[in-house]
C-alpha cells in the first residue's frame, strides 16, 4: 500500500523538520502520560505489594477486583472522570475539565490497576521464595514489603512500562475529558483520531509511527537507565 511508504516518509519529514505543532502535542502527550505513570506508580506499587503480603478477609475479592479493573475501557474511565469534573458534577468548581490535569487524572485511574495488579503478582511470586528466609532474619511486614519492591524491581519496572504503554496509547479517555482542544489538550492519540476522521490516513499513520517511536524511546531509555543502575549497584 502506498499509504505506508507515504506515512513513513511523512513521519520522518515531520520529525526532522521539527514541526512546531507536532512538537507541542508530543510534549503534551509525554507530560500527561509520564505524570500519570508517576502517580499511578506511587499508588500502585504500595497497593500491589500490600495486597501481596497482607492477609485480611476479602483479600481474594480485592485482588479479583484490581485484576478486573485492568480491563477498564478508557472510554468508561473518560466518562466517569467527565461526570466528576463536569460543572454539573461534584468537582465542577475545580474547573479541571478540558485541561491536561483532567487527562492526567483519567490516565492515572486507567493505569493504576495495571501497575497494582502486576506488582501484586510480582511481589507474591517473590514472597513465596523469600517469606521464610525474611521472617527467619527477623523482618517485619513493612520490611518484607520494602524488600519485595526492591528485589522485584525488574518485574516492577516492566509493570510500570506496561502502564506507560497503555497511557500513551489510549485515546478514549483523553478525548472525552480533554476535548481534543488544539494547543491545549491535543495529544498524539487524539490528533491521530482527528486526522483519521478527516480522512487524512497517511498523516494519521505518520503520527502513529511517531507515537510508536516515542514509546520505543521511552522504553529504551528506562531499560538503559535501569541497566546502568544495576551495573553500578553491583560494581
Amino acid at each position: 500500500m502506498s499509504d505506508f511508504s507515504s506515512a513513513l516518509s511523512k513521519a520522518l519529514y515531520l520529525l526532522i523538520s521539527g514541526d512546531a505543532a507536532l512538537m507541542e502535542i508530543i510534549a503534551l502527550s509525554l507530560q500527561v502520560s509520564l505524570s500519570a505513570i508517576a502517580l499511578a506508580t506511587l499508588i500502585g506499587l504500595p497497593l500491589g505489594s500490600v495486597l501481596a503480603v497482607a492477609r485480611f478477609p476479602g483479600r481474594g475479592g480485592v485482588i479479583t477486583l484490581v485484576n478486573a479493573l485492568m480491563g477498564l475501557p478508557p472510554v468508561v474511565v473518560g466518562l466517569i472522570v467527565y461526570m466528576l469534573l463536569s460543572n454539573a458534577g461534584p468537582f465542577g468548581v475545580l474547573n479541571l475539565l478540558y485541561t491536561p490535569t483532567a487527562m492526567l487524572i483519567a490516565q492515572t485511574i486507567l493505569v493504576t490497576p495495571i501497575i497494582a495488579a502486576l506488582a501484586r503478582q510480582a511481589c507474591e511470586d517473590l514472597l513465596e521464595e523469600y517469606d521464610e528466609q525474611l521472617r527467619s532474619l527477623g523482618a517485619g511486614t513493612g520490611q518484607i514489603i520494602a524488600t519485595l519492591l526492591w528485589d522485584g524491581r525488574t518485574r516492577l519496572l516492566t509493570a510500570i512500562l506496561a502502564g506507560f504503554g497503555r497511557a500513551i496509547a489510549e485515546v478514549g479517555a483523553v478525548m472525552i475529558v480533554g476535548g481534543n482542544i488544539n494547543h491545549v489538550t491535543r495529544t498524539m492519540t487524539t490528533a491521530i483520531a482527528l486526522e483519521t476522521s478527516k480522512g487524512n490516513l497517511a498523516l494519521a499513520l505518520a503520527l502513529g509511527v511517531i507515537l510508536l517511536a516515542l514509546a520505543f524511546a521511552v522504553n529504551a531509555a528506562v531499560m538503559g537507565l535501569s541497566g546502568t543502575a544495576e551495573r553500578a549497584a553491583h560494581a
Partner: protein
Amino acid sequence: MPDGSRRPEPDLLEVRGVTFKAGGRMLVDHIDLALRPGIVTVILGPNGAGKSLLLRLMHGLLTPASGEILMPGAGATARTRRGQAMVFQAPVLLRRSAKANIAYALKLRGVSRAERNARAITALEQAGLAHLADSPARRLSGGEQQRLALARALALEPKILFLDEPTASLDPASARAIEGVIGDTHARGVKVVLVTHDVGQAKRLAGEVVFLNRGKVTEISPAKSFFKRPESVPARQFLAGEIVE
C-alpha cells in the same frame, strides 16, 4: 525423655508436647525436646519424618497446634528469634551482591550502617568468599551460595544455629567445607541443631542424636551409644539401611 525437660527455666530452648497438623494429618506428634548447650544436636530420620517441620517450629516460623516452645526469660517469639539463625536446605539469597546479602540481614537486626559493612566483610572472609563480595549472590555456584547463606546466618552471631540439610545438594568437597564451618561454629560455643538424613554426616558431627520417625521422636541418645546400639526399632532399621516401618 531427657531429665532436663521438666526444669522450669530452659537453658536454650525447650519443646514441650508440640504437635503440628496439616490436612488432617498429625505431622509432628507430641514432641518433647530440650536443647542443651555444649553439644551438636543432630535430628536424624528418614525423608518425610517431620524434621524440617520440627526445625521451623523451634525457629518460630510455624505455630504449633498444641504444646509450647519455651526459651529462657522470654515470652514473645519474635524477640526470641533474635538469638537464632537458620540456614535452609535450598539457600534463599536476595537479588543483590554477596556482601549486600549479609549487610541486609545485619540491618534487620539493627546494626548501624558503618558496622554492618565491616561485619559483612569479616563474615565473607571467614567463609572464604571475600573475593566474591561484590558478585551478584544468585550467580554464585551452589556450594558458594550455601556458604554465603551460612556466613549470613553466622554474621548475626546467634546463640542457636538451625541447619536444615545444608549439604544435601552439594558435592563432597563443598559439603566438607560446610561441615568444617559447622565444627568451628560449635567450637565457638554456638548451639548447633542440624537436620540430616545422612548417617555419615551425623556420625561426624553429632554430640547427641534425636531420631524422628513419622512425626514422633523415637529416641534421644548420646551420639556414641546411638551409633553403637540404637534403642528404638526405627532407628535400628534406619542405620541398617532398611526401609523404616
